[in-house]
């Protein structure tokens, strides 16, 4: 669930960490990965499990080759994909990032 505080900042509730637009996201190093039929396959180092990202997830993972703020990620996704629900985008992206963080695939710098 997304909550917006008085100053207009957005946060994702029930997330491992609060993610605001200014939160910086960094991919962890040493992750085995491969682009397979245009979808990113990623192996979580902790349990060696294989994960497959959808088109948007694949794009986010790829642009995270350099650390980015949530705001930057949203803007780039918005620009890259047509038919994106702008109202939904923050919630979807922070949800995805929260999952990545849970699987220890990214580091979050608030």
């Amino acid at each position: 669930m997304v909550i917006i505080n008085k100053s207009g900042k957005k946060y994702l509730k029930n997330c491992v960490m609060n993610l605001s637009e200014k939160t910086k996201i960094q991919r962890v190093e040493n992750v085995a990965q491969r682009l397979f039929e245009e979808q990113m396959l990623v192996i979580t180092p902790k349990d060696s499990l294989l994960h497959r990202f959808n088109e948007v997830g694949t794009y986010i993972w790829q642009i995270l080759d350099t650390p980015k703020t949530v705001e930057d990620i949203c803007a780039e996704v918005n620009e890259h994909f047509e038919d994106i629900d702008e109202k939904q985008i923050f919630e979807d992206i922070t949800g995805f990032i929260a999952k990545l963080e849970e699987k220890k695939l990214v580091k979050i710098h608030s």
Partner: protein
Amino acid sequence: MPDKTIAQQINIEASKKNIPLSVFIELTHRCNLRCYYCYQKEFKLTKELSLHDWKRIIKELAEMGSLYITLSGGEPLLREDFIGIVSTARYHNFAVSIISNGMLVNESIVRELKNLGIMDVGISLHAASEGLHDRLAHGPGSFKRALYAIRLLVKAGIKVLIKHSVSNTNFGEYNKLQKLADAEGCAFECDSTILPLHKGEISPYALNHEQHFTFLKDMEVGSIVSCVSNKEDPVTLHCDAGRSLCGIMPDGEVYPCIILPISMGNISKKSFKEIWYGKKSTAFREQELRLEETCRKCEKNLLCSRCHAVAFLETKKWTGKSESLCERTAAMVELAQSGNA
């Protein structure tokens, strides 16, 4: 039947599209042990591709969609450029597994492997006790060295698999090794497939019927082949060799699987892509779909985990049956009928 995992789904897709998702690389035939069942004939230095060659090949494999690389031998750590090869594979984002006897694992190698972020290391053990393992590896002190390696790797946070081949010579050790693996914080992987020492014969170390039965029962594997529906062409008779699976030898020979010595071409002369989509590879895949009637019409084939390589090494024909596999399947059928599966 439980839903397929993502790894299984990806493997099926890769297999259909002939994407070599998993590549096994034998880096060298050289070895510092002489394990009793080993089918290697040349333990000395034969032609080995250079680090420069491997850099080119690994890059090409990444471009073709390969994700998993297993580095083995011989003993792969005997190569002085071993860390360079691992580092190349990691640079190209591979999930790297290593299979070793543990003899050369030391603190500095463990540190480097940890920093490179490899997926796991398999250490082979023939037995859970020093006396039997050392005797079967023909290497005094090899059990202690392997255990030392396991402990260093586990301490560094690297996933370790204790690998064990179940034979008539070390039969029953798998129970003790399972406990050892639990105690040391490792995974345990064992297999009862013993390849022949010489082409055209069954390995003298292959299990007999009773041992197969006991092993399958102890491992509770009776149910893993229950997903087959078509008796005339059961999927268990086919495998991923030459489709999503590939083997490359120290001199660059490309095989459909590391234990199936049917050359698809040599990578020192051609690109991997040319070999993988070349005539020999295509012919292998076409023939793979036409296994012999003995197996296709076999009463027990739904329960058979048939292996082309075992059939080839035992009978010189990979499309037909093998006595040792028939023996294992008979034990599987007996297990299923006894209600234990």
